[in-house]
C-alpha cells in the first residue's frame, strides 16, 4: 500500500511541477510584489490551463501524501517521494529545453544520492 501511494505521489508531483513550470514560463517573470499586482498575478494564473491542471495534479499528490504519512513515518515518506525529481530533471531538459551543464547534473545526482542516504 505504501509503495502504491509513493508511485501516485511521484507521478502526480512530476506532472504537476512540469505543468507549473510551463504555466509560469507562459506567464512571464514576476517583478512587482505589491499586493495589488500580486492579486492580478493570482487571477491571471487562475485562468491558465497549465496552472489549473498543475494544481489538480498537486492536489492528488498532496492527498496521497497525507494518506502516506498517516500510515508511514515522515522519514520514510520524504526520501521515497524524492524519486520524482530525477524524472523532472530529465523532462526539464527535453520538454522545457533547459540547458543542464555538468555542474547542474552533478549537483542533482549528489542531491538525489543524499536524499536516498537520509532514509537509512
Amino acid at each position, binding site marked *: 500500500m505504501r509503495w502504491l501511494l509513493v508511485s501516485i505521489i511521484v507521478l502526480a508531483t512530476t506532472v504537476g511541477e512540469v505543468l507549473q*513550470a510551463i*504555466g509560469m*514560463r507562459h506567464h512571464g517573470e514576476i517583478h512587482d510584489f505589491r499586493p495589488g499586482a500580486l492579486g492580478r498575478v493570482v487571477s491571471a494564473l487562475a485562468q491558465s490551463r497549465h496552472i489549473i491542471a498543475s494544481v489538480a495534479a498537486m492536489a492528488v499528490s498532496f492527498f496521497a501524501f497525507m494518506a502516506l504519512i498517516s500510515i508511514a513515518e515522515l522519514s520514510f515518506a*520524504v526520501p521515497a517521494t524524492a524519486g520524482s525529481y530525477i524524472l523532472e530533471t530529465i523532462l*526539464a531538459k527535453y520538454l522545457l529545453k533547459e540547458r543542464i551543464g555538468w*555542474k547542474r547534473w552533478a549537483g542533482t545526482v*549528489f542531491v538525489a544520492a*543524499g*536524499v536516498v542516504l537520509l532514509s537509512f
Partner: protein
Amino acid sequence: MTSPLRALRLKTRIFTAIVVLTNVLGNSFLSRGMQSVGELLSLSPIPYIRALFNPWVAMGVSLLIVWLLSHMALLSWADLSYVLPVTSIAYALVALVGRVFLHEQVSMARWAGITLIVIGVTLVGHTSPRTTKVHNKTGA
C-alpha cells in the same frame, strides 16, 4: 551587465529561502497533526476534510499554500532543473531539525546524506538560475 544577474540571484535566494522554510514547517505541522488524526486510507473526501479541522493540519496546509505560491513565483524566472535540487536543501534541514529539536539519532548514513545534499545544492547554486528565454510582455 552584472547588476541584473545579481538582482536575479538575490531574488532567487530570497524566494528559495521562503520555499524551503514553508515546506519544512508545513510538512512538520502536517505530520504532527496526522499522527493525532489517525490512519487515512479512504477514497471518500470526508475523512480528509475532517482532518483539515485539526489545528496542526490547518497550520500545515496554510504554510503549504504559501509554499505553492512562492514556488510558482520562483518558477516564473528560474529553471525547474535549478529550483528542484536547490530547494531540496529542505531534506537536509528536516534531518537537522530532528537532531536539534527532537533529539533524534542521526546515523552515519544520514550525516553522509546531509553532506551530499549540501555539496549538490552548492554546485547547482553556482549555475545560472535561468538558461532559457523568459517571456517578456514588452517584447524587448
